[in-house]
């Protein structure tokens, strides 16, 4: 393998990390509050609100039902509006954020549903405010599930980020397409696949380890 190619791999890796990093950051910063919001406004919870539930639920479902490849194309105008360009890893991260936030919000909501309702009731019987219950009961109790959900999200994002190569998003996927697919360089194609497999394994391993570490059940 030539030095140039090694350089390309290094760059592609950095680009993938960059767009994934942005998407993960937004998934956590927006997805967690959204997931908590969905849960605490559900039936029987302290901020029960059917209108918020159905509006947020519908929007999330719509975004989640759009195939990522379509989302990539549909969001090009918006990306241009925000960033002034639709090329490069930062531009690709816009559609990754759109895919990641609703996906992770649902996973957060699901892990909150796993909490025994009695524990929440007990916290209410102590006279705790909703905010204290969210901070001190809901989030700690769902932490393990939320980490497991984040692992799933990150791995899905990795395969999405490879797709971003198609619209010139850069990253490992872009490399695989440009060299491996368009130039029929099977070696590079195989190398990128192996790299992706290793990354997925590492993410899964790290995710499982930390989910287990915080689980006190």
């Amino acid at each position, binding site marked *: 393998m030539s030095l140039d190619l090694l350089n390309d791999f290094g760059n592609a890796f950095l680009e993938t990390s960059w767009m994934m990093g942005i998407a993960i950051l937004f998934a956590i910063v927006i997805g967690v509050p959204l997931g908590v919001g969905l849960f605490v406004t559900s039936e029987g919870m302290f901020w029960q609100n059917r209108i918020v539930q159905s509006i947020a639920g519908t929007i999330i479902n719509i975004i989640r039902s759009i195939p990522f490849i379509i989302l990539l194309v549909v969001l090009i105008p918006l990306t241009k509006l925000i960033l002034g360009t639709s090329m490069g890893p930062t531009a690709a991260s816009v559609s990754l954020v759109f895919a990641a936030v609703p996906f992770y919000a649902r996973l957060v909501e699901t892990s909150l549903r796993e909490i025994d309702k009695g524990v929440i009731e007990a916290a209410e019987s102590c006279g705790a*405010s909703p905010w204290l219950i969210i901070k001190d009961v809901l989030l700690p109790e769902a932490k393990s599930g939320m980490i497991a959900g984040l692992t799933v999200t990150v791995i899905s994002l990795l395969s999405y980020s490879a797709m971003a190569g198609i619209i010139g998003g850069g990253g490992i996927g872009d490399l695989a397409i440009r060299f491996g697919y368009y130039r029929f360089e099977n070696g590079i194609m195989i190398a990128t696949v192996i790299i992706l497999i290793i990354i997925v394994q590492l993410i899964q391993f790290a995710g499982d380890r930390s989910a287990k570490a915080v689980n006190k059940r």
Partner: protein
Amino acid sequence: MIKVVNVTKTYKDVNAVDDVSMTIEQGEIFGIIGYSGAGKSTLLRCLNMLEQPTQGQIFIDGKEMTSLTKKEIRKERLKVGMIFQHFHLVSSKTVEENVAFSLKAAGKSKVEIKKRVAELLDLVGLSDRAGHYPAQLSGGQKQRVGIARALANEPKVLLCDEATSALDPTTTASILALLQDINQKLGITIVLITHEMAVVQQICHRISVMEKGKVVEEGDVYDLFADPQTELTRQFVQTVHSLKLPQRLLDNCKGTIAQIIFRGESAEEGIITETLKEFDVAINILHGQITYIQDRPLGTLIIEINGERAELESALAYITTRTNQLEVLSHVA
């Protein structure tokens, strides 16, 4: 301390609690007994407004709970602790942190919390488990954490939702002893719901018996044991205090079989001896049992009486006047 006035709670056309009124005095241990689905758990949850009653009023320590805003209810809940059948501890928090949660809810400072948590763990005998997680504790220990959490803000009332139903008999006894201790030392009013008459017998002062959302009988525990007025109460009493004679024995009996209930002092008098002296009858004791309800004896005796009809009847009448409670189970002509 607690006043429930015509409370009804309706779920989809079903009255889980149906027009219930009761008054619970300061310092009392009040039991609510009933089978599953009798509405006792719903009623208990109405007391601290975890369930909003559909109709009626609830007063705790003079405050009308049913008229308060959400924020005011939260403030009142600090004065009403609650413990649960399945403990409901936060699994990701240590024993210490679980207890501290209540104090955080009351807005206490870190220093105060630290001091109070230590006191509470000492009270429930778990000082050496402060750093453990709930999963590392036994059922009895978990319930002790639950009690510490419920008592954190020095409540006036403690609500117990089947608090011992998930525990083995020995642990149940120790938790009940702890509750009794709390009641006596701290003067906290305790309301407990249960389906076990043994629990009521051991610590309650007064009870309500519930069925289909209604209170069917209410009174002093001893009176209810000695003289249950309804079939349901009788069934509950029989779970801890019942005499069953083997059929063989009944078949062989030639005389009248009678059941006598002795209450308090009369259990200590020699009624049988005196009856034998006064009347020309023969008495054969078939079965007997004495149950202690908070140190007061309640005796049941099943006897067979033989003799001339006139003598027999006078003897039965005599025992009836002395004990007030005699029930003829069978006559053999």
